[in-house]
């Protein structure tokens, strides 16, 4: 095989630091460079999705003022917005970006176990993004089937992009899955097999646990999306009828017959629900580490947190049909899936309690990462509570396909993970670049974003209860109360402000790269291994000649009797750094 197996070696001779610009920054096999490539690409395509959402909001808030988009464009905009946000931004950013950067550094490895495969993973992901973008330019434009791509309308005439757009989307998803699999196999194997000495599983930081479990979910859930994408591609190109029943569409009857649209829904949501947790679990893990570091207190109930992550991961495979209460499936299924859905709330609530209890009597530093982490607790509790509503069949049926659902999923899987992404960017930027990000701009970004998302999504719950349907271009002839249009206008204005506030982040990222204060190796005085590297930013191979050895768990903050209020994981027990009874020393 064409790799140098070096992830867990002391011997640095295997590491020839790449010299030329191309091998160092472009065709790089270094997990840190690949992480940045993933991150930059994901954010770039995410900005497209953000702009699309603002265009939609302008239409909804000021229906006749701008005429930026036609009704069919609106469908295309929601579809591309939703799909890009969920898959190409959040999944790629958490696993390809943070997963790549953090796993080897936090586990004390030199790199992923198969760096070459890891590099290919990024380039294939880039190809998926390119094919997705090509979808915008093919005849008929991108698909307008909604991000759920439900057949039969996804491939029937009359839906925008039903000939070319949908095929581009399906192919792009297929390529994305290949890329994800190559990366994901690496992340899982690295966590399982290539940790440094002393880094037992029960000493790993929760960030690694979250990313690791999410990757496993991805490896088991994406197959269902792949299979449904293959079948739908065949339906739309070759003319098979997997998902297509006999029907009359726009006056003529296509040649399909006998297929099952419900089958697609089952396959899609067998992927789609775990996908929610693919995005959420890394956020759970990362936010635990942010809270603990910036509250100078060990995470409350570490073992419980790990088991909760694993339990949520398993349960997430048996709740998928709560997205299908109104699909016409057997009503008894609704009973089963409502029960499992409410069960999954137990480990989830447990995590929330533990985050709050971590803050309890902590020495809270309201740094920018901490603000975002606390903001996450708010938005996540909020989105989680509305999830309990929607999990119950009888409550969901009248609310389904209204703005209540839009508000719910934006709070729980849009805003909450994005806040963690922001917090994580402010937290790890000093390690990635060696510079601090500007604090004032960071605070400004936080407050506008945090208050702004409430201004956007709180009123949407009310709209939903009034029955305002989602995926509508305009409500002209429907008799909604006056307040609906006024609220829509207010929401749009808030959305524009929040959208603009993201420019502060982009500016800050670039500005701090050149003008930021030097951060030193460990500006947050954190315990985890990535802050203990000999160089900042870490060099190729991460650790210099000797790999670190780990003596304690990741949360030795404010240990009584220690000379500092934190003890890094690689400090052996001694007079100024007592061995702790935490989960480190006895596992």
């Amino acid at each position: 095989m064409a790799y140098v197996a070096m992830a867990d070696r002391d011997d640095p001779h295997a590491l020839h630091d790449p010299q030329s610009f191309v091998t160092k920054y472009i065709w790089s096999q270094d997990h840190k460079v690949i992480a940045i490539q993933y991150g930059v690409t994901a954010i770039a395509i995410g900005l497209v999705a953000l702009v699309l959402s603002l265009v939609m909001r302008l239409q909804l808030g000021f229906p006749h003022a701008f005429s930026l988009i036609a009704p069919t464009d609106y469908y295309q905009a929601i579809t591309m917005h939703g799909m890009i946000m969920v898959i190409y931004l959040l999944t790629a950013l958490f696993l390809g970006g943070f997963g790549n950067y953090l796993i080897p550094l936090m586990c004390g490895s030199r790199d992923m176990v198969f760096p070459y495969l890891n590099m290919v993973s990024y380039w294939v992901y880039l190809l998926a993004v390119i094919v997705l973008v090509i979808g915008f330019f093919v005849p008929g434009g991108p698909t307008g089937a909604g991000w759920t791509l439900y057949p039969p309308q996804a491939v029937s005439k009359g839906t925008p992009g039903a000939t070319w757009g949908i095929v581009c989307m399906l192919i792009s998803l297929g390529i994305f899955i290949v890329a994800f699999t190559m990366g994901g196999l690496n992340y899982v194997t690295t966590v399982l097999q290539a940790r440094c000495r002393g880094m037992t599983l029960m000493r790993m930081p929760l960030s690694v646990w979250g990313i690791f479990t999410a990757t496993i979910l991805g490896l088991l859930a994406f197959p269902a999306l792949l299979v449904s994408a293959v079948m739908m591609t065949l339906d739309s190109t070759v003319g098979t009828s997997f998902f297509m029943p006999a029907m009359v569409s726009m006056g003529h009857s296509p040649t399909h017959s006998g297929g099952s649209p419900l089958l697609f829904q089952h396959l899609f949501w067998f992927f789609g629900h775990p996908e929610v947790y693919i995005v959420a679990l890394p956020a759970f893990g990362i936010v635990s580490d942010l809270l603990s570091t910036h509250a100078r207190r060990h995470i409350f109930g570490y073992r419980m947190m790990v088991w909760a992550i694993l339990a949520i991961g398993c349960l997430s495979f048996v709740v998928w049909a709560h997205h299908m209460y109104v699909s016409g499936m057997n009503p008894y299924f609704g009973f089963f899936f409502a029960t499992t859905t409410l069960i999954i709330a137990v480990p989830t609530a447990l995590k929330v309690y533990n985050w709050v209890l971590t803050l309890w009597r902590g020495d809270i530093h309201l740094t920018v990462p901490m603000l975002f982490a606390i903001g996450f607790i708010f938005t996540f509790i909020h989105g989680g509570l509305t999830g309990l509503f929607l999990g119950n069949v009888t409550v969901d049926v009248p609310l389904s396909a209204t703005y209540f659902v839009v508000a719910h999923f934006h709070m729980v899987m849009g805003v909450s993970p994005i806040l963690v992404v922001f917090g994580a960017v402010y937290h790890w930027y000093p390690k990635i670049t060696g510079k601090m990000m500007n604090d004032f701009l960071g605070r400004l970004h936080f407050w506008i974003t945090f208050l702004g998302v409430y201004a956007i999504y709180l009123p949407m719950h009310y709209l939903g209860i009034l029955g305002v349907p989602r995926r509508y271009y305009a409500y002209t002839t429907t008799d909604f109360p006056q307040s609906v249009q006024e609220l829509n206008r207010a929401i749009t204005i808030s959305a524009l402000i929040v959208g603009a506030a993201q420019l502060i982040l982009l500016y800050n990222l670039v500005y701090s790269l050149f003008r930021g204060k030097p951060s030193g190796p460990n500006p947050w005085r954190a315990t985890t291994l990535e802050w203990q590297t000999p160089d900042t930013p870490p060099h190729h191979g991460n650790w210099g000649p000797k790999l670190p050895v780990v003596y304690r768990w990741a949360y030795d903050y404010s240990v009584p009797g220690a000379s500092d209020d934190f003890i890094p994981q690689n400090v052996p027990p001694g007079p100024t750094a007592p061995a702790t009874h935490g989960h480190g020393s006895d596992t």
Partner: protein
Amino acid sequence: MATDVMTAQAPAEGLHGVATDFAADKQAFPVPWGKVMMWIFLLSDTFIFSCFLTGYMNVRISTTAKWANPSAVFSLAIGQTEVPLLLIAIMTMVLITSSGTMAMAVNFGYRRNRSVTTALMLVTAGLGACFVGMQAFEWSKLILIEGVRPWGSALGPPQFGAVFFMVTGFHGLHVSAGVVYLCVVAMRVWNGFYDRKGTYETVEVVGLYWHFVDLVWVFIFALFYLW
């Protein structure tokens, strides 16, 4: 590779640290990285095939038209007599035999027997190629003689051809990829790459993949030809 690193490291650095960490220290499984990765990949691939087969069962149950009768469709004429499932029986035999030769290759790999390992892997690849060839023959018979098409056929509902070509095609791609993989690794066994590396474990990793592809075939065989 990973295992010898464990032993190469002197345990001197803090006996205490070593004592407090037991089994879960560096590695969760005492096997090489490549093997762990293959296991995880196969688990993911299992989900792909499970989705395909569940999809197949679903369309077969929910379609209203009568499904094609497999023993009539998949029969082969010898002289004047139609023998049901003859070709497929031969194909299955070939594939299962190839699993046997693969297992022997792994065995000879552990004995560091370069030439026999290479030969057995090439035999395995040959049997795999033979399987794909017979599958191509079966497909062309269905398409040219029976007139089965992915979008419809006289023999049953349109889903019959669609799902048959899709699933056996996907499996056929797996076998073809396996043949290439086997040839590449066989070449490396032959030119002494693994002798220099000090371990033949890659042969075993290929073996895992190959046995998996065979195992999947057993399910496809049962669900498509015997149901």
